[in-house]
């Protein structure tokens, strides 16, 4: 059996390298990132240094606690281990080649290799996408987005994935899905960028992306043993509240930081983020109160996260009134997606990666096309209410491309990892709990 395993592993590596090379082969001769000419701004730089730390905090410990509290006690360590490990693994992949693939000029589909191992990044160099801050800061800031996206996917396959399979899948996904899509939408020559898709801080790149990958993982791996028959209540919602709160605070780095400057755009992004989050939290809370009879803690924090997700693509383009609308829509629609839709279709997206991030991301991306106003986002960045209904179609185009690429490549990667390493833990391990079996530890 072992030799076959090794052959298949090598084939898998070769296949993913081939995919990446194909994408970058469409490149013209890669132009080096322009040497710094505009002066670095200390205000912008200070803010972006801070933003990076805030967004990192969103994953560790924000997401770790948010998810950790929601699983059963016997799996809490395995769950937080996933968030922490993603942080470490993606950091390394990012600096080796991820940043280069995502954020340097290359082709409309993938960046070049000019920043392999960050060679060429100096104390003075800048990325043309953010000329007033050092490239090191920009690179780190974008790294934290690359980190949280695969970390979000973990919510879909909680309680049942092998750790080795998880490492393989996350590593490959981050290079084969995250980097290309980040390049499509944000890369200087990315084709979705050129098409005018508006995504300020990652509604498509982060949320729709992770949401659909999560859904694919949930479908490929199947439901947890005992799902829908045995009770699996969250073991400690206090942890989840702490996690959600850290996500909320950190998200100001995510959205306001995506302005890559300390200015009015960042300020407005902060304002609309706060408005949409609070509104969505209330919307979910009231929806649940009406439908189920009690407003729950899990409900209000989920609503807040749904609002954060939906405002993400819109945060640099909409005004406070738009934020209110996005909040109400996200709260109500994501409540339905995480309850009614999930139970009707009977898939086990354990922690609602799809229901909150996939659906919330789509709600936000479409509403960006509706509610974008030029006085916030700048000339040419208008939506339906500002006289440019075409933007809605452009947004739908961006969503479709992202979903199709994400779903296809994620499925391929999932199947590859399943065939070589095996995605799911044994029945015995799943019953007894992942913490002891996978990590040799338990919370007493």
């Amino acid at each position, binding site marked *: 059996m072992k030799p076959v395993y090794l052959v298949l592993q090598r084939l898998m590596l070769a296949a993913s390298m081939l995919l990446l090379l194909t994408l970058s082969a469409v490149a013209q001769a890669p132009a080096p990132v322009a040497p710094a000419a505009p002066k670095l701004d200390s205000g912008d730089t200070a803010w972006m240094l801070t933003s990076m730390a805030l967004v990192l905090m969103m994953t560790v410990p924000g997401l770790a606690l948010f998810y950790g509290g929601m699983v059963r006690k016997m799996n809490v360590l395995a769950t937080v281990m996933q968030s922490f490990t993603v942080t470490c693994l993606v950091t390394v992949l990012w600096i080796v080649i991820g940043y280069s693939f995502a954020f340097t000029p290359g082709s409309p589909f993938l960046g070049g290799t000019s920043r392999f191992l960050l060679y060429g990044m100096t104390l003075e160099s800048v990325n043309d996408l953010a000329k007033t801050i050092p490239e090191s800061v920009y690179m780190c800031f974008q790294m934290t987005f690359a980190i949280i996206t695969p970390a979000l996917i973990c919510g879909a396959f909680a309680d049942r994935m092998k750790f080795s399979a998880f490492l393989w899948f996350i590593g490959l996904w981050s290079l084969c899905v995250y980097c290309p899509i980040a390049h499509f939408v944000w890369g200087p020559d990315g084709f979705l960028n050129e098409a005018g898709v508006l995504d300020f801080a990652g509604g498509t790149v982060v949320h729709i992306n992770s949401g659909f990958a999560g859904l694919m993982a949930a479908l490929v791996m199947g439901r947890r043993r005992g799902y*829908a028959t045995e*009770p*699996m*209540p*969250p073991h400690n919602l206090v942890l989840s509240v702490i996690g959600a709160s850290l996500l909320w605070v950190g998200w100001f780095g995510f959205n306001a930081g995506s302005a890559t400057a300390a200015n009015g755009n960042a300020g407005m992004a902060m304002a609309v983020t706060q408005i949409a989050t609070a509104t969505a939290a209330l919307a979910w809370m009231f929806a649940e109160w009406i439908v*189920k009879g*009690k407003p*729950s803690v*899990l*409900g209000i924090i*989920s609503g807040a996260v749904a609002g954060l997700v939906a405002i993400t693509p819109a945060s640099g383009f909409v005004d406070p009134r738009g934020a209110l609308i996005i909040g109400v829509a996200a709260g109500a629609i994501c409540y339905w997606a*995480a*309850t*009614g839709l*999930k*139970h009707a279709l009977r898939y086990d997206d354990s922690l*609602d990666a799809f229901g909150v991030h996939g659906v919330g991301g789509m709600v936000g991306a479409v509403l960006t096309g509706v509610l974008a106003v030029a006085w916030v986002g700048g000339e040419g960045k208008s939506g339906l209410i500002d006289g440019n209904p075409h933007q809605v179609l452009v947004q739908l185009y961006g969503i479709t491309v992202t979903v199709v690429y994400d779903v296809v490549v994620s499925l391929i990667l999932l199947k590859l990892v399943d065939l070589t390493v095996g995605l799911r833990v044994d029945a015995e391990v799943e019953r007894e709990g992942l913490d002891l079996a996978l990590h040799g530890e338990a919370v007493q």
Partner: protein
Amino acid sequence: MKKIEAIIKPFKLEEVKNALHEVGITGMTVSEVKGFGRQKGHTEVYRGAEYVIDFLPKLKVEVVLDDAIVERAVQAIEDSARTDKIGDGKIFVLQVEQAIRIRTGEQGADAV
């Protein structure tokens, strides 16, 4: 020697403990347990998923004591633990074969 096992509602612990003190009992063991009899459970809802939880939190009070005071102890527990609502609990009386105090090695009545 007898052992009393009493399943009571958790908030009644202080009252039961004081009532037992008054009949001369100074030692007891308490554990957190789950159970149900005729009292209905409750429903918890997490993101639309409803779980019916049959088991309710209770406390088990265990006392080993001389035959002479069993009746008064049982009465003390009954009176202090009762709320007249379903779920008040039950008291069981068991025979004990031997009791030993670990520190001194005393046995029987001297050990309780």
